């Protein structure tokens, strides 16, 4: 595992949920767009958690730098999918309101 992967793992494992938790404070009182952003990011992170868990366990052999899909699902997804989820939800809101 490269240093970048280690950093991304820590970011996705601890920093992203912390940010989500902080942004979820009094979410019901915030605007509809912000609520959508929040729930999109939460959904993205939950999906990423499941993917990362699966990718880390299967196959039960060591990680190699050449394991592209494993790196994508096990490390990158934890950071990228919450952003994708938030964007998808935000764009969905814009389309609905316009």
């Amino acid at each position: 595992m490269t240093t970048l992967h280690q950093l991304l793992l820590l970011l996705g494992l601890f920093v992203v949920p912390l940010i989500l938790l902080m942004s979820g404070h009094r979410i019901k009182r915030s605007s509809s767009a912000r609520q959508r952003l929040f729930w999109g990011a939460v959904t993205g992170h939950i999906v990423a958690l499941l993917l990362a868990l699966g990718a880390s366990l299967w196959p039960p052999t060591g990680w190699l730098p050449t394991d592209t899909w494993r790196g994508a699902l096990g490390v990158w997804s934890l950071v990228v999918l919450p952003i994708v989820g938030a964007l998808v939800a935000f764009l969905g809101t814009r389309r609905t309101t316009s």
Partner: protein
Amino acid sequence: MTDPNTPHRRRWTRWAFYSHLWLGVVATLALASISVTGVLLNHKRGLGLMPDVPHETDAPLASSLSLDDLALRAFRAVPAEARPGWNEADGVKPGLIDRMDVRPRDGFVKVRFRDRDNTEATVDLATGKVLHVGPRNDVFLEKLHSGEIFGDGFILLSDVAAVALAVTLITGYWLWLSPRLIRGRETGVK
């Protein structure tokens, strides 16, 4: 009687609630990973993650071949990926071996290699016959369970998760107990 709903208790309950919430969310994946790998490790034989090599021997331990000879036989038996860059002429390269686990009661030695699959060769101590060759998937799961797989220092990750779990259990218990204590005292006052 003292008021059960004192500021001190309210502060503690508030702290317990937020600790429970924050630690629970932050430690979710680490704890899920530790739980799943823990269950898999408990059933590693049944799930075929660890080879079970039945072997009986009457040969005395004194008749065992040398460690070097046994290791050489293991080198010959394992696939080339498990011993990259090795030639017969090199003899045994200790750097490619993770460990040799001698089982005198079973009459064999397990030679584990330092490759991606943690390939292991089981060799008879007396005859040198290779009994089994295959990957040790449970070794990977053990490293994932401890966090060691992600690099040096990541073992602290499982420590953090364990502490988070303990704090979450204590605070969860308090959050369940506290309202009942207050209700019980109020009923007692009446």
